């Protein structure tokens, strides 16, 4: 096990380097010019060229990459081209907002998906299963922004139960206020995650219920509920663990559309603005960060999997 972890961690460095090169190349190949995003026809060419030179954008691409890499190795993620704030600070100050939002959504989705999936699997093809499957199809197909606007209209404008945008009421600094603002975005996200998780759990359950150990439990006289929730559950958790491991990176980038619609101050909306403005230091920062989390998440998933299921022999 320890060897696996060590091996993975060593592989991380070249992997991240590769990701950074590909990402940078893509940004540079895409049409669009960061300077254009804050230039108006009133500005003289000399000023535009001077600003471009000061930002280092007149140098060839590989030189720009090398300069960026040098700074990175010193621990500096660079400065935004557009508002000159340090990238590390920009990402870290928004991380709690996104991580909180996604964390709650994923947790809620998992907590609801497990029983729903188990029941759907157990009552396979009965009407309970049909309803759950139908709802999950809707959840997968419905576009997130549409659902978000619909909920805002219903709960904020018509019923006036919840605020329609932002993470806080202006000037208020309480946790309760943040939670109130978070209800709608978390619900929207949880609904779409829930729908796919349910399907995983359901198919896993159907598979497990055919196994011998289940038959033996019934032979011993266990009732369905015990069989499901005490025995089958453990086996069904395995695909969930893999899913959750891979979702670690989603904690950073998974809520882009939702954040934009709800004006939730997270990394997703920071990333979208950066991409539109071709602000490459921010794009690189976010990409590296989420790549790192993805690698760590996968590693965690593999390790947990090894503990959860002794049949899996992790690589020696």
């Amino acid at each position, binding site marked *: 096990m320890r060897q696996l972890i060590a091996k993975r961690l060593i592989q991380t460095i070249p992997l991240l380097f590769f990701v950074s090169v590909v990402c940078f190349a893509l940004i540079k190949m895409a*049409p669009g010019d960061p300077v254009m995003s804050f230039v108006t026809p009133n500005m003289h*060419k000399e000023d535009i060229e001077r600003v471009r030179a000061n930002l280092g954008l007149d140098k060839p691409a590989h030189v720009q990459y090398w300069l960026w890499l040098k700074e990175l190795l010193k621990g500096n993620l660079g400065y935004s081209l*557009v508002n*000159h704030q340090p990238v590390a600070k920009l990402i870290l100050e928004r991380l709690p907002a996104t991580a909180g939002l996604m964390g709650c959504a994923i947790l809620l989705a998992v907590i609801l998906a497990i029983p729903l999936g188990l029941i759907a699997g157990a009552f396979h093809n009965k009407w309970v299963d049909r309803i759950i499957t139908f709802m999950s199809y809707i959840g997968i197909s419905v576009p997130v922004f549409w659902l978000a606007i619909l909920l805002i209209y219903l709960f904020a404008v018509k019923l006036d139960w919840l605020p*329609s945008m932002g993470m*806080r*009421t*202006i000037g208020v600094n309480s946790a309760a206020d943040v939670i109130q603002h978070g209800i709608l975005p978390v619900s929207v996200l949880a609904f779409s995650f829930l729908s796919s998780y349910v399907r995983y759990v359901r198919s896993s359950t159907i598979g497990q219920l055919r196994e011998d150990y289940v038959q033996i439990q019934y032979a011993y006289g266990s009732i369905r509920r015990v069989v499901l929730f005490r025995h089958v559950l453990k086996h069904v958790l395995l695909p969930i663990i893999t899913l959750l491991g891979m979702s670690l990176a989603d904690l950073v980038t998974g809520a882009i559309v939702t954040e934009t*619609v709800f004006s939730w101050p997270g990394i997703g909306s920071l990333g979208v603005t950066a991409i539109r403005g071709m602000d490459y230091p921010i794009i690189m920062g976010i990409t590296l960060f989420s790549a790192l989390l993805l690698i760590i998440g996968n590693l965690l998933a593999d390790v947990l999997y090894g503990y959860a299921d002794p049949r899996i022999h992790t690589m020696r």
Partner: protein
Amino acid sequence: MAKRFSVILIFALLALAIAACSGKNGENNGAGGGNAAGSTNESASSEAGSSGEIKVGGSLIFGVGADPLELNPIYAGDRVSLTINQALFAPLFQVNNGEKTFYLAESLTPSEDGRTYTLKLKDGLTWHDGQPLTADDVVFTFDAILDEKQNSMFRSNLILGGEPIRAVKVDDRTVEFRLPQVNPAFEATLVQLTPIPKHIFENVANIEQSEKNLYDVVGSGPFKFKEYKPGEYLTLERFDGYALGKPNLDSITYRIAKDSNAALLALQNGELNVYYVNPQDVPTIEATGKFEILPYSEGRLAYLLFNENSANGLLAKKEIRQAISYALSREEMIQTVYSSGEYAEPAKSFVTPDGLFWTNDVATYDNDVEKAKELLAAAGTSNPKLTFIISSGNKAMEAAALYVQQKLKAVGITVEIQSLDASAFGQKFADASATDFDLAYSGYIMGYDPDAYRILYESDGDANYTHYNNPKVDELFDQGAREPDPEKRGAVYQELQEIIAEDAVIYPVAYTKTIVAVDKRFGGIEEAVLKPVVIFEDPSKLYLK
């Protein structure tokens, strides 16, 4: 049994869904809306005050589309930063319809020969932190803009004929600006020169990267910085020492609302008080009965661009440009693109109505299909094909492109519409060497001094997107920039407008209006002066009714 049950259940769910949907469309009027964040003061103190007396207090919430980039006036170029700066910083003076309103300055006197301008500041001015605002700050700001290391976008505005303008302190309240050559447009440059505090920035090596550009900003405007939560909102509170007198409102908040649909809902819900609306959204907002819909001139011209550099050489010919203009109907196009003549006035001149020496009384080629066909036949082109680039998602451009395509088809010109992503569009539009597109629908806001337009129409102008080349026009722009006598100057720009219209350099479509929805509970809008880009020129005049 189970099957029948499932069928019934499915129908029940569908029925529920349909009922929910129709219920939504039935009513338009928002619910009680007592959820107005931040405006909690006014529910207690309702209309007790007699009319004519302006109440002090209350909070106003603007909806803005993005985070501000830099709240330092020597860098601010994006709409959000400029809007917030209008409340955070006071300018020296502003000009509306030729009339000056003085803010920090008391007077501006040009010398006889037009080469020196003397600016006198008002007495007793202070910054938000209590430090006095003096001529030192003005000179410091000037020098910071000129300093190449500080990277200000406005530097070239302070350089005339290769020589920088010099700012010299005469005494604590007086500054003299010494110009290397006569330039009546200098006044317009000074309008944009907002002083920054010397005592904050004087020892900062790189002003651009300073945190003071986004947090704890020290300004001289009616409202001072209170707090900024990135991605969420920025709040300012009243500054009692403001040059034009104590503002009425307690605070102004700029709420960041990235999605326009969600923002419109927030507007209806009372979580925003001021927001830009599109013509298509006006009916919905008006129906709530809670908002004043205020269209006002943006000083903007929307026009059809003819790229004379295009590879097929078609648009380089004046007759073809004229033919295209004849094929189009300005009135029809305005209706198609803006859905109502209320929000766009027909434009014939490249100058906007708020500009000095503007006249719409120039040659125009409009709405004469027969003439168009004649001109095309005379030019001898066969099967002409033009490429029209648009930025995907931009409704106005799409509508304009489709309209032009249809109208030009009727005279035998095929138009291919190419939709590009916003950054790609921006790049191609501004690319001086692009030869693969002919038409584009664009717009510009250049300010009130016509000298600003030279950058667009001079042969070597930095923003000459049409690549128009006319030595006479270059000469006239040069003349106009130096001519101190307003009458003679007026004649120069009159001639320029006539020539450019005659040459059909562009097809001017409309002087568009911006539409802003303002919550009816707020007054003082006229005194605050509606202004392009920043919405209100002087937010201190706004009050809660």
